[in-house]
């Protein structure tokens, strides 16, 4: 090959690579701008519709304050304040039915469920506008009262730490131990969940793979929740689980691999809100 042909080939390679670099760069730029816009959308929603300034994680593990899940069917008076303005939120989008708040994480979002498309909010924000980070959502297999034996909420594992990315904080044993509880608000109730375990799981669709109406299936699930088949797991063994337990599974993708990362909580307190 003479020098001229070599030169020509190199120039062609460089031109092709420059085109690829520009295309990839442009794509990432558009994506980044989209993420910024979605981030602002949620920030505005958090500032406008929810006020969690006073809620902090308990300093110590609240051992002994555990209220068994049988209390879930009888909400406990007296009323507590509801920091979420559901009236205004639902005026924006009636699919918003709850708000999840996990102290010391970025998880502070409305929870949605579409009755038309189960995965609409995988890539649509709380105003139903297209956005890659989507929203925190459940599917129609779950009711909106959090009374199912197992409720699953989905959220993206975003590189910028938004949506459910900071669930991965629970991989750290210290964080796991010092943050036992998280909260879900509905228009009339405050639900307190105690984190039972956090672990890597496969990519099975939980609600389509298990029939939790069967006691033995649910019992096996509870057993697995406290002794997961995962090397990377943190478990709280002092939480009692039984067939009356109401589990809330928070599901996001792993940082690598095709599986999912699950944080499982059990309902320990159900309070009426003012």
């Amino acid at each position, binding site marked *: 090959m003479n020098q001229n042909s070599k030169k020509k080939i190199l120039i062609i390679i460089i031109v092709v690579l420059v085109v690829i670099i520009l295309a990839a760069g442009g794509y*990432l730029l558009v994506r980044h701008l989209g993420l910024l816009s979605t981030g602002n959308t949620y920030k505005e929603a958090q500032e406008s519709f929810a006020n969690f300034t006073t809620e902090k994680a308990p300093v110590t593990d609240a051992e002994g304050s555990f209220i068994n899940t049988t209390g879930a069917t009888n909400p406990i008076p007296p009323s507590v304040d509801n920091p979420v303005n559901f009236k205004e939120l639902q005026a924006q989008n009636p699919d918003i039915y709850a708000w999840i708040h996990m102290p010391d994480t970025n998880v502070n979002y409305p929870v949605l469920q579409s009755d038309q498309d189960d995965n609409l909010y995988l890539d649509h924000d709380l105003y139903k506008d297209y956005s890659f980070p989507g929203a925190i959502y459940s599917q129609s297999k779950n009711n909106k009262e959090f009374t199912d034996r197992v409720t699953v909420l989905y959220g993206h594992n975003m*590189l910028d730490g938004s*949506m459910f990315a900071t669930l991965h904080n629970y991989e750290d044993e210290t964080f796991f131990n010092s943050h036992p509880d998280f909260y879900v608000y509905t228009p009339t109730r405050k639900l307190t969940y105690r984190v039972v375990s956090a672990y890597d799981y496969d990519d099975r669709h939980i609600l389509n793979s298990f029939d939790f109406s069967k006691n033995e299936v649910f019992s096996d699930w509870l057993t697995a929740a406290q002794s997961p088949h995962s090397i990377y797991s943190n478990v709280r063994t002092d939480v009692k689980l039984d067939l009356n337990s109401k589990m809330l599974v928070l*599901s996001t*993708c792993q940082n690598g691999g095709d599986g999912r990362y699950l944080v499982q909580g059990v309902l320990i307190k159900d309070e009426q809100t003012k």
Partner: protein
Amino acid sequence: MKKLVTIAIAVMIMAFSAFTAFAESVNSPVATTQPETQTTTIVPTPDDDKTSPKTGSNDIMVYSVLALSVIGCGAAAAVLAKTAKKN
């Protein structure tokens, strides 16, 4: 040529009368009749998949392509500069 033009006109007329949107404006006894009332039926699409919704951040692939392209481009430019120097 004449034949071609005739065929093209015939096809255009057929297409014009076939589409309801065009036919609406045609005041002709052979125009298509409008549907009585349009009702939008939204069919729910439940997720029956055996796999959980993919909630990963899939930018890693793009970043990899970008990084490899930058490295490749740099290497090609270096070789090109070397070749030019030799000459």
